């Protein structure tokens, strides 16, 4: 059960609208309500999303549906090992008629970008995308081109132990606000998927529930969600625990703390609350910190997961 609204978010309650979107997406991406909710949280918190899972579990569909539900322009970039930055950002070509170079924007100039199998591209190509994500603009040959707003990147990554991949370095993983894992649908959901209509067809029929401007206003409301001293105490207790733990190489950075806070606020907003609760932090915690923790030397590969579990059990002060 979700805590009921004690006080609505300032500037109007957007939770019914967002929950309608989540429900709409859930009719297409079946059995993944939690993932959908987190993805929407990430979008509302103005963060980028990394989805890590095997091919064919619905990553692309989720990205597509998200774009459609929020009425955003959608582009998909399939990353390959021979990809160049220009394939992502665009190129300047000499225009004979105009007598000047003309910039042809690449696929990154879109509101929702699905960077499929981002770990198959070379680090150079990866960097091009990540820089665009970070700066919300693209600079080519001295000219700066602003990216459309809102700008939301959903990168998908195959699990890193597959052959012929360039796993994203830790510093770049940090650019993603959340990392989600889709996982297989449960039995009932999969049965409905198998028996139901084609997802692509359904997708085309999905109406845009939220206008782009509305999304921007919702996004701007995230930081107004009240984070009380008690909540920050709790958050800091989590950060401190991560920094004191021997399980991981480094504790959570201040940026991770800020990410946690934003996501908790966005989560509260989704619930229609004007204040964030420890439950909000707990709801987003694994997705926000999971990809920011590296097992310490001599620790097993599961150390990060273990630490995340520990962090979720940090007593609430």
């Amino acid at each position, binding site marked *: *059960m*979700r*805590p009921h609204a*004690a*006080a609505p978010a300032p500037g109007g309650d957007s939770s019914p609208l967002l929950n309608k979107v989540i429900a709409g997406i859930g009719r297409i991406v079946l059995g993944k309500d939690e993932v959908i909710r987190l993805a929407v949280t990430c979008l509302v918190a103005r963060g980028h999303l990394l989805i890590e899972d095997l091919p064919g579990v619905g990553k692309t569909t989720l990205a597509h549906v998200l774009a459609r539900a929020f009425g955003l322009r959608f582009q998909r970039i399939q990353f390959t090992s021979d990809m160049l930055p220009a394939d992502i950002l665009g190129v300047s070509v000499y225009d004979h008629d105009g007598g000047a170079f003309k910039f042809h924007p690449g696929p990154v100039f879109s509101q929702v970008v699905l960077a499929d199998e981002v770990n198959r591209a070379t680090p150079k190509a990866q960097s091009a995308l990540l820089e665009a994500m970070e700066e919300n603009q693209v600079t080519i040959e001295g000219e700066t081109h602003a990216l459309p707003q809102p700008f939301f990147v959903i990168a998908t990554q195959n699990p890193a132990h597959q052959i012929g991949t360039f796993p994203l370095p830790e510093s770049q993983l940090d650019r993603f606000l959340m990392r989600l894992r889709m996982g297989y649908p449960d039995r009932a959901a999969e049965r409905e998927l198998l028996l139901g209509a084609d997802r692509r067809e359904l997708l085309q029929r999905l109406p845009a529930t939220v206008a782009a401007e509305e999304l921007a206003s919702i996004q701007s409301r995230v930081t107004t969600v*009240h984070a*009380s001293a*008690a*909540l920050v105490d709790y958050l800091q207790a989590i950060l401190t625990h991560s920094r004191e733990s021997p399980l991981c190489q480094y504790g959570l950075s201040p940026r991770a703390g800020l990410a946690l806070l934003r996501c908790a606020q966005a989560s509260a907003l989704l619930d229609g609350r*004007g*204040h*964030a*609760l*420890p*439950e909000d932090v*707990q709801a987003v915690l694994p997705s926000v910190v999971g990809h920011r923790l590296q097992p310490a030397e001599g620790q097993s590969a599961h150390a990060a997961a273990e630490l995340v579990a520990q962090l*979720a*059990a*940090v*007593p*609430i*002060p």
Partner: protein
Amino acid sequence: MKHPLSPDALPLDRRAVDLLMLSTGLTLLPHLPHLPLFIPLFCAVFALWRWMAAHYAWALPGTPARTALTLTALGGIALVFGTVFGRDAGTGLLTLMLGLKLLETRNYRDAVVVLFLDYFLGIAVVLYSQSIPTLVYLVLVLVVITAALIELNQPARGHAPLRAMLRRAGVLMLQAVPLALLLFVLFPRIPGPLWGLPQGGGTGGLDDSMSPGSITHLSRSDAVAFRVDFDGAVPPPAHLLYWRGPVLWHTDGRNWTADRDRTVSPPAAGPGFTPLDAATLEYTVTLEPHGRNWLYALDLPLSVPPGAHRTRDLFLAADKPVRQLTRYTVASSPHYRTAALGAAERARALQLPAANPAARALGAQWRAQAADDAAVVERALDYFREEPFHYTLEPPPLPGDAVDEFLFRTRRGFCEHYSAAFTLLMRAAGIPARVVTGYQGGELNPLGDYLIVRQRDAHAWSEVWLEGRGWVRVDPTSAVAPQRIEQGIDSVLPTAQRGLLRDFEGGALDALWQHSRLAWDTLNARWNQWVLAYGPENQAAVLARLGLRSWATTALAVLAGIALLLAALGVVLLSRRWNRIDPALRHYQRFCAKLARRGLVRAPAEGPAAFGARAQGQWPERRAAIASINELYIAIRYGSHYSADRIKQLRRAVAAFRP
């Protein structure tokens, strides 16, 4: 060998040296009046040397030079004082050694030693003066020394401003006050002065002999002899205020002494007198130290304070000389009849020297002309009243036969002249007579409602033994200057003696002066009463009132008091910590505890909303109460709705909640 970087071996910086100089100088200052001049002079030289070493890199003396200086200092002390022990020599030695220590103060440890010596020397001031100004100054000095100690112990030697360190030192001193008070009241008092040192207390005051001019010189002293609190608020009339001191029997015609060979009157076997009526005066005397045994009391003391006895001469005497402020309570009977006069006493009371033939002839002549002894007494008083006798502070010198000179030539005198002459005349007339010394009168301090008796109230009078009445007090001075007795010594003093502000006499300024003088005296009286006079006897009384009758229970009380203080400190510190915890959280924890007693335990990481939902699931019938507590708690603690009102609401809701 210390590690070269250990703080003990760190050389002192200039600022530390300056602070050492400051605290040492301030400590020495109150010792200046009683130290031989060469000691502070030497200390100043040593201090200057050390200062130059710190600021201008002067070399400090080596071990041979220091050894030589130390031996010289020891020798000098021994030479000047004749000893190196005792109060004065000890203080001098301590001062000199402190100065010498400055010369070998190189590092942190040395500096700490110097500061500890400063503490010790500072406390030594109390051996000389225990007045309020001394105490105030001493506390200030202690604050400065403590501040210097704080500076030395700054871990990084970061220079906090002096003011901040002084404040911290002051706070430390204030924090020590409760403990100091506790120990002041409960710590066992030792009888006698500290370390049994013969103290200088006992300068001035009445002697146990009297000669022309001996009391006159006291009349110039404003010093307080003792203060008296009367049990009944109203002090008795002035003609009863005869504070009895030593009784003088023996005279050589000029000087009066208690006896030819014995100065202290032996203790009396019985009271030596019978009160004529039930009238008694009860009062408490706070006696300044005067170095003699006697305790002043009104004629005649019925009761005897502990540690004292009543002498055969009917004055009170302590078992030991009064060398520190003493407080005792006495009841006196103003109307009395003394016991019969023994043959030996009668002989002493009639002792006559060969000198003063004229006076003796006059006495014999009155004897022949009078019907009885009482008539002789009246005749003598009339003589003083009618002949041109003057009461004066500046009597002319009396060469040769002092009484003859006074009676027939100068006729100007102070109380000792009149009492001596009168007593001699009585003896010449065959009436047993003696001189009584003491104080007469006193100034009523309306602010503190007590009587101040000063040295200038010193007085001498006579007692004659009359058949059927025993010893009768006769004050020949009252025949000459009745206002001396009725209105006090001030009324007969020339105006030049009355104080600095005589020009403003009667004016507002004078009134203000009088008022502040009395206020200051009141403060001193209370200080004496509550602090200085708190000796073993008073402590025993206070402890008895507190129910502490043995030292074992007292020691227990001291320990319990200290434990209580520490506990109070702990409570303060904890409550500060506790207060930092949100009161809302406190109430919520109580709520959780109530649920836990019913088996629903909140996991440490369980958020309030999740736990609330779980609780509502467990007790659907209490759903509303749980929801409202939860809502309030979340609104206060996580929402932006913090208000005392809501906290009160939460407290009530939690208190009313019965799972």
